[in-house]
């Protein structure tokens, strides 16, 4: 019972970022320029990079590839970033690049023929553009997540007027997921030991879905009611402004950088529309 109460308290306190252990997030603690920037500034930077890659001139996306890599080194997260790049980004964009250069329609200049596949210069160019856009988008998000703790971002956004409920949803989801995954592992092991077949024919595997999903879902839904009463008793729906335990620094450099980025985004989009 005591443990349950502690768990509920953890759920409700949104500012416990230094005490709780979120082993499922990408965050890597370090001291760097990227880590010390305000979370909102980093978010603006991510959206600015995405906007440059997608809505500005087509040459922008390939040009941005190198700066994004350098940003990983500036943020001192190059090891983790390269790890994510090798495991998640490279396989995805590699597959996309090969498939798109082989199959996208609309090519004219034939580069070479390989059995049934015709490869054209234009298709390769389109595929490369798409892939570099995806690279910039996913990499900048990855860098944001590597250098910003989720609850730091949520605290900052809550301080700027985002309803506290959103912060509650995101932070408590990040806590519930590891628990629920552990529960799922237990259920899979328990049902297997009772003789549930999870590996043979298709029909048996479909049949295994309900005995695995059922206990997991009902078990976690039962807790909802209790938790709702508990956080209601702690003033969850109160409209008063909540005070924050941690101050997140927002320097004048951050503010200036945000305005510069917004201005650059507007200039890049307007010039693209104007010049084309």
């Amino acid at each position, binding site marked *: 019972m005591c443990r349950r109460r502690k768990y509920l308290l953890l759920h409700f306190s949104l500012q416990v970022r230094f005490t709780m252990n979120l082993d*499922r*997030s*990408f965050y890597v603690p370090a001291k760097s320029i990227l880590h010390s920037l305000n979370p909102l500034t980093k978010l603006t930077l991510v959206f600015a990079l995405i906007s440059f890659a*997608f809505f500005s001139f087509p040459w922008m996306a390939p040009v941005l590839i190198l700066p994004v890599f350098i940003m990983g080194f500036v943020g001192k997260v190059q090891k983790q970033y390269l790890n994510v790049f090798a495991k*998640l980004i490279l*396989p*995805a*964009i590699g*597959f*996309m690049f090969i*498939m*798109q250069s*082989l*199959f*996208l*329609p609309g090519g004219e200049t034939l580069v070479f023929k390989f059995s049934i596949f015709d490869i054209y210069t234009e298709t390769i160019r*389109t*595929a490369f*553009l*798409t892939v570099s856009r*995806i690279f910039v*988008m*996913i990499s900048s*998000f*990855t860098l944001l997540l590597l250098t910003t703790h989720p609850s730091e971002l949520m605290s900052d956004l809550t301080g700027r007027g985002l309803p506290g*409920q*959103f912060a*509650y*949803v*995101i932070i*408590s*989801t*990040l806590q*519930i*997921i590891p628990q*629920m*995954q552990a*529960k*799922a592992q237990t259920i*899979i092991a328990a049902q297997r030991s009772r003789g549930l077949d*999870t590996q043979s024919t*298709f029909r048996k*595997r479909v049949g*295994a*879905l*309900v005995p695995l*999903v*059922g206990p997991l*879902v*009902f078990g*976690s*839904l039962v*807790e*909802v*009611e209790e*938790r*709702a009463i508990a*956080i209601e008793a702690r003033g*969850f729906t109160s409209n008063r402004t909540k005070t924050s335990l941690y101050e997140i620094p927002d320097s004048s450099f951050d503010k200036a950088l945000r305005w510069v980025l917004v201005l650059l985004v507007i200039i890049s989009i307007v010039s693209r529309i104007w010049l*084309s």
Partner: protein
Amino acid sequence: MEILTQNLVYFIVVIAIMVLLFVWAYITKRMQKDFSTTTWVLIPVAIAINLTIGQIVLVLKLPVYLDSIGTVLVGVICGPWAGALTGALSNIIAGMILDPGWFPWFPVAAAIGATAGVMANIGYFKNWWKVVVTGFVIAVVATIVGTPIAIVVYGGISASGSSIITAFLLETGRSLLASVLTTNFIAEPLDKIATSLLAFAIIDGLSARYLSRFPRGENAAVEKGQKTTQLVIALVVVVLLILFGIFVLPSITGG
């Protein structure tokens, strides 16, 4: 350039309609009514259900994703706005802990939750055959929302297994739009109907007392006197509609 401005106009119109809907629901207090404390507590659990069941399905090696059961559940018992929020946050959180490639798909997940909520509001989540229809409608909406994202962001062929079908269709000489639409139309209904049926099975197992805690709990009141024939007819009709769609879609979108 002309294509660009044309698409931009569509984009602005769609955004404007959504903003108007949002403002209307906010001013008439329809939205606030759905976001009670129980809703806010259910949303994190639903997101965790989405992601965990996605992993169980990977263990079982089934050809579906089933990563929106929680979204459909919230949409049905807490209303379309809560469903949409669950879907969107579900993808954002999957992007935060699994793979940032999930971020761009959040409008699809939001549309799935909203559609489930709207269908439940008009009473289409009360017995098995109606749930099959709901699943099909969700799949159609997911296709309509997902296709532009697949084309604009990923250039048509994304890094998922179903893009092999897209590649095959492109090789048979169809246009990019037709190929992506057809691929989604083949892949989505199976997944979304299975998702809706599982969500319905879960709701069926919850007590009426528990459901009454949620703002739209009455949407999930299961009807008496269900017949297997109705379910079979609904499934057959849906399969026919999918086959019909696969042959008709390319000619609508111009080859």
